[in-house]
């Protein structure tokens, strides 16, 4: 009896994981539908959806970056104070004192860029594959809102290091918002908590970045994926052959 077998026979293990390991289709099915997270999948999938060119995995990559961002983001929150000048000092502390601090910050930053990029590509892919056709109209709209949330998350996070890049990037961006007729000035005031980018703006962006927007994003991602499942799984290229002249 190997150690693995012994572990698998303990009552604790069996209380957590109820299916056996024998490579039977029954066990494979149990893996999927006895697991809350994997349950989003059907037990069987169409083989052609596994092809890389079917979706280019763009939605999956976007979701993967989201998971990475949540994980690194929570770790970074342990070291961050949304105040001036401590916010900037915290960036230096991450760089020079915190173990793996640079790595965490870099990973968060690059994952954020990749998320914006892959979400945009995902949208293009869905458009060119005409995967928004009924009954998926609403899921397309959810996707557009998710893209918007992604941009807002990236943008609010951009201010948090409180360096020159952050300050002027956000100043330029919010000055654009000011141009909206009637509501522009008010929207900007509401976003920044004042007329200039200041400590108030930092706090607002922090709360948006770490609570409001991520919660909204995760909720909508759930809706998005749930809809995909309900509508019969991922939609690849349209089946109809392109006609030739």
């Amino acid at each position, binding site marked *: 009896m190997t150690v693995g077998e012994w572990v698998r026979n303990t009552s604790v293990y069996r209380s957590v994981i109820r299916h056996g390991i024998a490579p039977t*289709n029954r066990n*494979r099915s149990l*893996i999927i539908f006895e697991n809350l997270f994997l349950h989003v*999948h059907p037990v*069987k*999938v*169409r*083989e*052609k959806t*596994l092809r890389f060119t079917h979706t280019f*995995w763009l939605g*999956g*990559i976007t979701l*993967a*970056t989201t998971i990475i961002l949540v994980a690194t983001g929570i770790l970074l929150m342990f070291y961050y104070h949304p105040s001036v000048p401590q916010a*900037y000092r915290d960036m230096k502390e991450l*760089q020079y004192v915190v173990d793996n601090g*640079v*790595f965490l910050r*870099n*990973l968060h*930053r*690059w994952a954020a*860029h*990749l998320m914006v990029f892959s979400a945009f590509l995902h*949208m293009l892919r869905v*458009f*060119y594959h*005409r995967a*928004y*056709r*009924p009954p*998926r109209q*609403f899921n*397309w709209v959810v996707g*557009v809102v998710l893209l918007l949330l992604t*941009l807002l998350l*990236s943008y609010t996070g*951009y201010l948090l290091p*409180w*360096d*020159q*890049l*952050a*300050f*002027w*990037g956000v*100043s*330029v*961006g919010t000055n*654009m918002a*000011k*141009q*909206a*007729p009637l509501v522009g000035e008010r929207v900007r005031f509401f976003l920044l908590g004042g007329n200039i*980018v200041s400590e108030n703006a930092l706090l607002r962006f922090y709360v948006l970045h770490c609570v409001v927007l991520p919660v909204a994003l995760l909720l909508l991602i759930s809706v998005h994926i749930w809809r995909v499942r309900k509508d019969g799984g991922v939609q690849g290229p349209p089946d*109809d052959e*392109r006609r*030739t*002249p």
Partner: protein
Amino acid sequence: MTTPIEIIDSEDPLANPWRVALVRPDGRPAVHETDERYVMTFPHLILREIIMFQIVVIALSLAAILFNAPLESIANPVETPNPAKAPWYFLGLQELLHYFPPVVAGVVLPGLVGICLVVIPYWRVNLEGAPLWATPSRWKAPTIAASVILLSILFVAFRCWPIVIPTVIIGVAMFAASWARAGSRWQWLWGVTLPEWIMTWFVVIAVVLTVIGTFFRGPGWMWVWPWMDAPRG
């Protein structure tokens, strides 16, 4: 005793949907045939998902180890960098500001793009996927030509060359597609639908504007070549 459950007996299939298929008198009882192969989600899909996730983490980790996230000196409201740039995904918009009045570049154009994206599925855009030149119509070519020319003139009026040039190129490509012959290398061009042409136009412009804003703009939003040492003022 319990009251017996009332059973509504009806012949109306809509009121009592207990059916496998509804065959309309004018249709044929043929079901869309799928001879697709199904595979078990575990391991086929799950493993692929994990590998994909691992590849993303590996790629990002390597990037995180090799390239440090930028961190400049502490924010200083007095010292304005020249140029002050927004994050890269907004640089297309910032580049638009260079050509259009702020209201147009900052509100109207992005608003239009947002609305267009939302209405795509509801306006039944591109549902059939009919290639642009599949259905001959005497008004199609003149309308498209007029639209391309009008748009070009509009953007020329604003001296917005990064939009004019893609507009002209896409316009020419649309007409070139009509001449693409079956079996030639350009056959796929013929199959492109009108909404796809428009989306491509939008994507090319967005990419061109973002690339220009990111790499080709220096102090005072003047044109610079990224490989030359940017003069600072």
